[in-house]
């Protein structure tokens, strides 16, 4: 046979959701499970009436039942206020996932555009973009969050939006912007001299035409891999900031603030208050990192992707 085998074009979906390793499959099922929890979260109490799972109002304290260990009534036990941890872990899924998603999409989207633009224009635009990235990334992520809260703390600029959540989203976006800028730029920089870009110029495409029609599609795989990874990373940041009391405040259910509630209890042996929400973070992050096609894509310190 001398003909070239017919080329099979795998859809984006197929490329993301099928992989050779079984571990990947497990992770992806896990991801859809977490996604499912995030969707049903707010209705968990009414769902509890139909199925035999003990769920409660995530915000109603039970003063007679504080810090009780896991049992048939409270699968994950209760915290100092007697709130049911099982219910709260589920309800918090949506909060963490949504904030991560919005923040990453916002910062990442802008970062992609800026990165593509920097790669296309090169020269001083590129230099300025790189220096900007360098400056932003020299602030440790959590301290950057801290500073944001310090700066925006007394200001009332978000109107009806929850102040803590808004600042969290801004923090996530700020962390992700340079990440995406850098990644997209590094993928595209070699393409600026590519002949198909020259060909597109000969075909009369302008700068944005090339960025939109050629650059971003070619960075798509990288962006997708980074997206899952940075969402995972964002969940950790949200939980971390809430753990030191910034962002989402108790008694609103959020994994980080729930761990904070249990932090002082754990030296006394009341492990369940912190352990279960922490486990939820681990599972979410683990399931999300399964989407990163290349495990070489690393988010290093300060979110430097290497």
């Amino acid at each position, binding site marked *: *046979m*001398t*003909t*070239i*085998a017919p080329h099979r074009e795998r859809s984006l979906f197929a490329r993301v959701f099928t992989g050779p390793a079984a571990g990947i499959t497990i992770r992806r099922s896990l991801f859809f499970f977490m996604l499912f929890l995030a969707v049903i979260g707010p209705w968990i109490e009414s769902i509890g009436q139909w199925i035999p799972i003990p769920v409660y109002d995530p915000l109603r304290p039970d003063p007679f039942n504080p810090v009780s260990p896991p049992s048939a009534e409270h699968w994950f036990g209760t915290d100092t206020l007697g709130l049911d941890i099982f219910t709260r872990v589920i309800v918090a899924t949506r909060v963490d996932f949504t904030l991560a998603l919005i923040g990453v999409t916002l910062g990442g989207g802008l970062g992609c555009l800026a990165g593509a633009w920097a790669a296309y224009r090169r020269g001083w635009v590129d230099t300025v973009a790189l220096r900007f990235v360098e400056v932003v990334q020299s602030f440790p992520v959590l301290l950057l969050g801290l500073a944001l809260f310090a700066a925006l703390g007394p200001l009332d600029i978000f109107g009806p939006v929850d102040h803590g959540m808004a600042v969290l989203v801004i923090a996530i976006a700020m962390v992700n912007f340079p990440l995406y800028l850098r990644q997209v730029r590094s993928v595209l920089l070699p393409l600026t001299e590519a002949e198909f870009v020259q060909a597109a110029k000969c075909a009369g495409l302008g700068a944005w035409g090339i960025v939109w029609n050629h650059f971003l599609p070619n960075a798509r795989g990288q962006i997708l891999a980074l997206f899952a990874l940075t969402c995972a990373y964002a969940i950790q940041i949200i939980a971390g900031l809430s753990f030191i009391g910034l962002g989402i405040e108790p008694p609103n259910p959020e994994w980080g603030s729930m761990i904070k509630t249990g932090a002082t209890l754990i030296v006394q042996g009341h492990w369940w208050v912190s352990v279960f929400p922490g486990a939820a973070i681990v599972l979410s992050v683990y399931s999300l990192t399964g989407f990163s096609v290349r495990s070489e894509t690393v988010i290093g310190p300060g979110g430097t992707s290497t």
Partner: protein
Amino acid sequence: MPVGTEGVSINSDTANETLLSLSGVEVTINTISGPVHPLQGVDLDVFPGETVGLVGESGSGKSMTLRSILRLMPPGGAITGGAVKWLGNSVLNLDADELQSYRGSQVAMIYQNPVSALDPMLSVERQIVDAFKANRENSDGVAEEYARDVLRDLEFGNPDVILKRYPHQLSGGMAQRVNIALALACGPSLILADEPTTGLDMTTQIRVLDLLERQVSARNAALLFISHDLRAVSRVARNIGIMYAGQVVEFGPRERILTNPSHPYARALLECMNLRTGERPRSIPGLVPQMTEEYNLCAFRNRCSSRMAVCDEQPLPVHNLGERHRLLCHLGPGHD
């Protein structure tokens, strides 16, 4: 050391003993998208001191042939059949230590991309000295002296300056001469050259090629030179092999291959090379085969103008036409 062209003599003295002999060498590389078979039965003999050229298009298995001689396989690759013999001993049975002393001191290689074949972090001197010392027991002083000499041999006007340089400070032609120096420093009996002049300017190509040939013959070493360019090969090599789809389909003395080749592919290639004004340029219809399958029948038959019924039925016969002229084709020597 002149070598006769009478072919393999049975009771050979050392001069006529085959230096290197490949017979039926097969290589398989396992890739993510399935196995690839770049070599599918390569036969080749090299005698001491002679220059042999291999010509083939991209994907014909030229580079892989050189790598199989040194047993340097890419990840996932393995020699899955045939024999590689050095002075009658199987190279495939060498253990790690033997392999290390075989590489370099017996056979050394010159790479296609001269700059990336040099370690970017080490000076030219360090690299030549290391190659020299790896193959001969000598002190640093001798090695440094040798490094200077070999660079002078390779027509570097100021060896001391070049020795202190790093690879990125060399031009393409200079880097390729440093690569040649490295191979010579090992003191091998056979030098493999993988398209050593392809990336160079035309006017530089010939210089480097001639230099290579002169230095190799001055050291009584043999040279196995591969290229996609028949003209480059014919400038240097006395015997020329034509590769197609992982096999040497025709092998013979330079004059025969250049003027009257027997294999239809070799003829077509010559036609393609010689463009004549006023005539439409020739080409070979069809595509180069992909090496994802193993060919039991002739791999060229779909593009061949002399295709016969037997080509689709029987495996290729080997014709020995004398004077080491060898042919893999159903047509045989007798046609037109």
